[in-house]
């Protein structure tokens, strides 16, 4: 059994967010982290590895510096890493991103017992689209928002977190599961893992390596293959200074409720 985990390197939004003069994110000047939901996905895979001895492969699409993040996943316990990287892939929207990742995964081979883990959502793009789209493109079942995962034979029992409760779903392999942060507490790296992580297998798949995959086609990848295009990005206006309400208690409550309703807070 092989477990693939899709991990994305994202800007650390807990620090200072830097914006270019033209309004786009200044990614180069921001520290990067592994997308938090994806770390939960890595931990879920490693737990299954502890239980079943499965092989865990971490996969990312992104520029070459994403290697560092993938090595960290190996230092946590993953067996190997694949970086899908190439100029042709840049500017992809979620459709093209999932197309490329799905192409990469079929190139690596998704067997009948295999599982693909994704995070629920990336903290930069925030769409939560990529996981489900990969599943569609690979034609395999998907379970999103996993908050508990148990494996019994060739089926997985997954607790899906919903807004007002949860749902228990049984799914057979191969399948794709997207994980929420609440699923687990990701493990730390170990010193031994760190000493070994630069010696473990690391594959780079570029356009040349994937171009014969049926899913990879110049019209379905990169900026040209993206049905959506970012037209404009801008920093939301800063909130103004606070406003003091005056009057009787009743008047103030009424005014407060009205202004909150106007801003769609309530």
């Amino acid at each position, binding site marked *: 059994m092989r477990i693939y985990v899709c991990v994305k390197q994202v800007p650390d939004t807990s620090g200072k967010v830097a914006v270019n003069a033209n309004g786009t994110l200044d990614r180069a000047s921001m520290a990067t982290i592994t997308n938090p939901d994806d770390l939960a996905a890595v931990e879920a895979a490693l737990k299954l590895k502890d239980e079943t001895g499965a092989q865990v492969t971490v996969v990312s699409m992104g520029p070459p510096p994403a290697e*560092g993040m993938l*090595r*960290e996943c190996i*230092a946590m316990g993953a067996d190997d890493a694949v970086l899908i990287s190439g100029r042709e892939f840049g500017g992809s929207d979620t459709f093209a991103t999932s197309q490329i990742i799905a192409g990469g995964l079929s190139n690596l081979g998704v067997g009948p017992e295999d599982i693909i883990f994704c995070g629920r959502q990336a903290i930069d793009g925030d769409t939560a689209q990529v996981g489900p789209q990969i599943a569609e493109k690979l034609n395999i079942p998907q379970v999103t928002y996993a908050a508990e995962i148990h494996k019994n034979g060739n089926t997985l029992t997954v607790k899906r977190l919903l807004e007002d409760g949860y749902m228990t779903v049984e799914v057979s392999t191969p399948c794709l599961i997207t994980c929420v942060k609440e699923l687990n507490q990701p*493990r*730390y*790296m*170990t*010193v*031994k893992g*760190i*000493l070994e*992580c*630069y010696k473990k297998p690391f594959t780079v798949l570029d356009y040349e390596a994937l171009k014969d995959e049926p899913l990879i086609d110049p019209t379905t990848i990169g900026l040209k293959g993206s049905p959506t295009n970012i037209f404009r990005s801008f920093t939301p206006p800063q909130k103004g200074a606070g406003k003091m309400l005056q009057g009787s208690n009743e008047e103030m409550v009424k005014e407060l409720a009205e202004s909150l309703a106007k801003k769609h807070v309530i």
Partner: protein
Amino acid sequence: MILSKEHELMRKNFRNFAETEFTTEIQEQLDREGGFNWDIWKKIAKYGFAGTKIPVEYGGQGGDYLAYALMNEEFARVCPVLAIYANTPNSLGGGPLLQCGNKEQLEKYLTPAAKGEKHIVFALTEPGAGSDPGSMITRATADGDYYVLNGRKCFISGAPIADYAIVYARTNPELKGAKGISMFIVDMHLDGVSCGKPEPKMGINGYPTSDIVFENVRVHKSDLLGPLDKGYAVAMKTLDGGRLGVAAQSLGIAQGALEEAIAYAKERKQFGKPISYNQGVSFMLADMATEIEAARNLIYSAAQAKDMDAKDASTQCSMAKYYASEMANRVCAKAIQIHGGYGFIKDYKVERLYRDARVMTLYEGTSQVQQIVISRSLLK
């Protein structure tokens, strides 16, 4: 010094672990109540930090002295006492075993220590033999397949929670000073072994320190560690590594105190502006940072010297311990000064760091002993 990718990653990991797991509640509880936090110990053990510097074949992580220094630095930056938890098995506990344990001893004692399953402590100091351990009077007398130990050790870090102790005792009373001393691995549960009550300490509360008393303790000769009558040299070599650990703990404490001082100086306003706008304050910060960076480079290069088994490694470790521990005391004093009256109140972390820093110039050889080691190497 520019670290390798692996060492950078280690630093990141040690820092992440310490910042996440060494919560303020745990730190304050240990400082208030003393004792020992077994939950944190289990986490340290789970990730192999008890064996950072111990070879993989003996259950350790296979890291080098630089990895070990980084761990002590990053752990102590958040909590000095928890740095000591992870430090002991890697240095004073495991050191003598690594240097001269036979295969059975290594498997029996080092592996469980590296995995954090058992605690091994180092018992050299006696009430009458501190800076001059050669004047020790604890005796080990041969009796058939056993040695019979009598005597008292004091200030032994971790003694109340220990499973085993590396104990130094005089095996040949004819020989004086450093000669005639041997090392034993003593099971703390043997008949005749007892601990004094934990010492009430100024700082590093939460890792208990006490006497160990030996009354006719029968230690099997298979637990004699290294050659008979020649244990002293091993103690000194082990202390080199331990001194590097203390130097790195001092560095971490100073770094932690500097960060607290910077944050406070930017936030606290007097005379209508943050106190950091005054050169009297900002120049103190500049001095603190500069001394810290000097210590850091000294420590990392001493660690590399140890890793390469360089001839002057021992002197470099002494220099690193001497400079870094004195530096940490200066830096912590300044950090308190920058906090003003608030720095004297226990609600502020610098107060605890100041107390924790104090022991660094004392244990594993006082600053004066380091000066003796350094000057001897200059004048030989």
